[in-house]
């Protein structure tokens, strides 16, 4: 005799797992493929049982190219995040603790700059970069990614800063703290978890950013997104190697992302959903 509640739970288990397995299947398949030989990878009948090989990883890792792309990704993701934080922290502090009548409007305006599709700025940015020698440089990509993420970073920090009791900062002001000391000695330590998850989101967004990497960089400064794209050309049709490269490219972000999923919702919905 199985109770109604148990039946229900079993149904839900089946449905829930079916849904998540279907959704995650392509990623799972890609990881699996990365351990196959190229022949196994293009077989018309998918191989589930095979002798796993690390050959693809070895082949990819051995390319000097790959290391450069990976390093570009790291530098661009970190650099653009730090740059965005440098601007966003004071900005969010200002709006969270010194609101004026225009604060709400300012916040929405910042968001609206994000509404403009990046292509809208492609022509001018491309020309400016060409004339200033920023094309295909990491610096250029750092700047563009930081600017592109700035509204989101400001918003996310703003919602976290709003949780810090303003009396604590006021106490600091009574104690003689300047705005800078307030931010550095009080606000930042107090909202460290928020700043951490904001940084994480910015890193994720920059790591996965493809539009600017594909249009503004070439051999020198291209990050992993662009490297993976190069597999789409006919001569790059090595599915197993593609899978290995892709797995390596997404693994760090997958882990970071899973670790910060809760904060992510809040940040990406600009505090509308907590």
């Amino acid at each position, binding site marked *: 005799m199985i109770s109604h509640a148990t039946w229900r739970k079993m149904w839900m288990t089946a449905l*829930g797992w079916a849904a*998540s397995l279907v*959704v995650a299947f392509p990623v799972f398949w890609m990881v699996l493929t990365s351990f196959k030989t190229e022949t196994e990878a293009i077989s*018309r009948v998918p191989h589930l049982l095979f002798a796993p090989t690390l050959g693809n990883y070895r082949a990819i890792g051995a390319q000097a190219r790959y290391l450069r792309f990976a390093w570009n990704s790291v530098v661009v993701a970190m650099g653009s995040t730090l740059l965005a934080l440098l601007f*966003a922290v004071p900005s969010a502090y200002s*709006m969270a603790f010194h609101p004026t009548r225009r604060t709400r409007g300012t916040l929405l305006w*910042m968001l609206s700059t994000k509404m403009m599709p*990046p292509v809208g700025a*492609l*022509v001018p940015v491309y020309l400016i970069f060409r004339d200033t020698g920023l094309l295909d440089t990491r610096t250029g990509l750092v700047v563009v990614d930081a600017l592109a993420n700035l509204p989101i970073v400001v918003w996310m920090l703003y919602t976290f800063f709003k949780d810090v009791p303003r009396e604590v900062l006021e106490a600091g002001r009574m104690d003689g703290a300047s705005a800078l000391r307030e931010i550095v000695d009080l606000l930042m330590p107090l909202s460290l978890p928020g700043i951490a998850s904001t940084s994480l989101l910015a890193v994720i967004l920059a790591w996965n950013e493809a539009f600017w990497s594909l249009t503004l960089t070439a051999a020198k400064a291209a990050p992993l997104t662009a490297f993976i794209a190069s597999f789409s050309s006919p001569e790059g049709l090595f599915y197993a190697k593609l899978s290995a490269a892709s797995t390596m490219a997404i693994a760090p972000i997958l882990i970071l992302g899973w670790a910060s999923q809760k904060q992510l919702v809040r940040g990406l919905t600009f505090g509308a959903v907590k």
Partner: protein
Amino acid sequence: MSTTQTSAGRRSRASGLPGAGNAGFYANLPSIGVLLLWSVVPLGMTLWFCFRRYNLMAPERNGFDGLGNFRYLLSDPGLGMAVWNTVLLLGAVLVITVGLGTLLAVLFDQEFFGRGLARVLLLAPFFVMPTVSALLWKDMMLQPDNGVLAFLWRSFGFRPVDWFGRLPLLSIIVIVSWQWLPFAVLTLLTAVQSLDAERIEAARMDGAGPIALFRYILWPHLGRAVSATVMIETIFLLGVFAEIYVTTAGGPGFASTNLSFLIYRYVLMEYDIGGAAVASLLAIFLANLLALFLMRSFARNLDT
């Protein structure tokens, strides 16, 4: 009386806010400044190039061109397709992700075995970079010879579909929906979980069945989350680019070209800056139209 009061008020404001007030206010200016540059300079340059003949391959033929670029663009058969594809892509992905997302959010709100792990798996696509997910679908899922779907089709006795050749836009929609579904689920699930259990119980006591519960309790509660989801997705979906770039390159013909890709084509494939500028203007216009509408509904849901 009232005039002296306001003038006194103005005087003390002009002489500065006490404390960190001033610094607190100015701290916002750097961000405002760079964002202003980031949005105004490109717009200004775009406007300028709209009326210029300017091809990077023939820079010497640079000059004022009146409405030439507009005429050229309007005669481009790709333009109408690109606008239509952009709108279709946006609409389809929104409907799929929010619709499926709501169902999955309700499902994942239920207790079941291994729910935590299942949820983590469900989120995976969101963290996969666009070029990877595009290639993953193109080469391993939808590939007509050795893709997984082709195998499934064959095992059920159907002829495999040449997805990117025959249904390019649909294929793109599938990829992009797959990428954004987790985000919708995550957001809506968070919202579902914030629903007060007592409210559901109260409605049950009032005799509400599952349908009524969804219609009158859950859906209104989700309004805020849905509006946020739609807005964020719109932000990113208007700029879909890499998924097209690595799969169909906008083709066949213009069948899967959206505005982003059209502009890219003008700039980096035809080097036609003037044409690209006009198309950009159109993209910006379209985005702002949507933004106006979305921001309004979002702002209403906002507590600053």
